[in-house]
């Protein structure tokens, strides 16, 4: 065979060729192209595609009141979604780490939301939170806790419920990762803690937390990354509304491009998002590789 004449490196590169080709054409090239788009006023509805330099960015930063709104909403959503999903993941992991009957079944159940598409999660919560036929408003009304059917997706609180839906979807991911890390904690430490009469909080603080510190940071950053780039959930669950109260950057870039057809401006917004995501991604990369 001709592979005999190749060195290890050449053989490796040969097998990597499709991947490198793919990374270049399906990630690298579109990104460069998107940057080029962001320097034009490419607009399908108006039929324009002229080079306008950094005008899109100038308008974005200095002339567009929605930009600050989107940044604020993105920050609100990302912080809230990250905290809820990380804490929830930790709680689920601690619970599933205990020994009890039916644990296998509950593990399968808990994993379910992980397997659902973001679209499906948005749909589930649209039914769940609906004002007239929703589960929550019907339950509160039927129990006599509220006088009328409540609308949860209001200007003030819609974003909080989107964060809750996000956490429902993503928490199992963190839970199973943390669970894998919990199971390597030596049994002896817990036995020793029992002899020392450590209470639940002491056990968590002095035995579990040292083992979970790095995994928790990893999962925190990952949750953060996914919450910052989330667009589908917003598109289906709230459509950016009511008003612009849930218009996060990623949804706004989507809407500018595919609802207003101003791809140039949408590309400029998406580049702001790329920069934010890249910073988070780099932090993640260095932490994961450092841990190894």
């Amino acid at each position, binding site marked *: *065979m001709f*592979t005999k004449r*190749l060195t*290890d*490196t050449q053989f*490796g590169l040969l097998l*990597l060729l*499709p*991947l490198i080709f*793919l*990374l270049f054409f*399906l*990630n690298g090239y*579109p*990104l460069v192209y*998107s940057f080029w*788009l962001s320097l034009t006023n*490419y607009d399908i509805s108006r039929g324009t595609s002229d080079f306008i330099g950094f005008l899109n960015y100038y308008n974005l930063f200095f002339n567009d009141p929605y930009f600050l709104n989107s940044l604020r909403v993105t920050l609100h959503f990302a912080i809230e979604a990250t905290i809820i999903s990380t804490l929830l993941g930790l709680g689920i992991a601690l*619970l599933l780490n*205990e020994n*009890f009957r*039916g644990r296998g079944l*509950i593990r399968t*159940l808990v994993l379910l*939301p*992980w*397997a*659902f*598409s*973001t*679209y499906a999660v948005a*749909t*589930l919560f649209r039914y769940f939170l609906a004002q007239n*036929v929703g*589960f929550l408003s*019907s339950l509160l009304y*039927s129990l006599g806790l509220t006088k009328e059917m409540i609308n949860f997706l209001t200007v003030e609180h819609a974003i909080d419920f989107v964060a809750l839906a996000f956490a*429902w979807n993503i928490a199992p*991911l963190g839970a*199973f*990762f943390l669970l894998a890390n919990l199971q390597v904690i030596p049994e002896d430490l817990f036995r020793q803690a029992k002899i020392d009469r450590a209470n639940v909080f002491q056990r968590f603080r002095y035995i579990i937390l040292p083992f979970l510190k790095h*995994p928790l940071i*990893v999962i925190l950053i990952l949750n953060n*990354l996914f919450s*910052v*780039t989330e*667009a589908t959930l917003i598109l*289906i669950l709230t459509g950016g509304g009511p008003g612009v109260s849930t218009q996060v950057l*990623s949804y706004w870039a*989507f809407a500018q*491009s*595919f609802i207003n057809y101003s791809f140039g401006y949408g590309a400029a917004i*998406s*580049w702001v*998002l*790329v920069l934010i*995501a890249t910073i988070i*991604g780099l932090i993640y990369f260095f932490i*994961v*590789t450092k841990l190894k």
Partner: protein
Amino acid sequence: MVNKKKIVIIIGCFLLILWTLTPIYWLFNISFMYHAEAYTSPAHFFPEKPTLSNYLRSLGFSAYNELSGQVEGPAGYPVKEGLINSAIVAIAVAIITVIIASPAGYVMGRLRLPHKNLLLLLLLGSRTLPPVAVLIPFYVIGLKLGLVGNIFGLIIMHLSITIPLMTWILMGFFASLPIEVERASRIDGCNRLQSLLYVVFPMALPGIAAIGLLSFLISYNEFLFAWIFTQGTPAVTLQPVLASMWFMIGELNIMAAANVMGLIVPIIICILFQKYIMKLRIVDPVSIVIR
């Protein structure tokens, strides 16, 4: 003390089950209701007259309505076509991903390469790219190349997600396999390619099967690219079909039934995968990300 712990566990499990299952239950609940009941407010917590007519009608059959005594026609959404297109796209994506990512994962996990860290960074970088940022240029390029509105465009888009991710996962998997067997096969006279095909890949079969399954699920679940590339065309896949019902303000009961059918595939894969997920040594949580 022991009892206190037991009570905490029981309450925790109870809350966990409620939290996970109520949103899912609610969709099932409404999917078994006739039109009139589905719009009752406050909603019923169990269907009064459970019916399968929503399922039949969303799949393109007629069904008898017990309440009104009339036969209702098909709902007119291409749910069946969407399922077929989704299956074609997802199977193609899974197969191509396995073919490209397995050797690449082997190389990244086993061999020494110049600039390997740069490649690692690029792999992860493609994971951290916001989908929207890739979608916008892809759409403009796709329009020019005629890739919008056919499944080839969508398959390529999905491969851009699955291949880097699955290479990243397999990299860890190949690195954890014993290298001695591979060495022995080389001494016994296999060349590099033979030892890869007949020794290494068969050893890695569980991992390769898992990434095939995950790729299938990612492609089946992917919404944003599918929506922009196939919505309203004959190539439309399931997720855009379901989502378009929201934008056409479809009947709540029909939509619920159609969406429940969309959940069947992920539920089956989740059950298949559950036994596996604890055995996959989750070194890096990215390995079970499916979005």
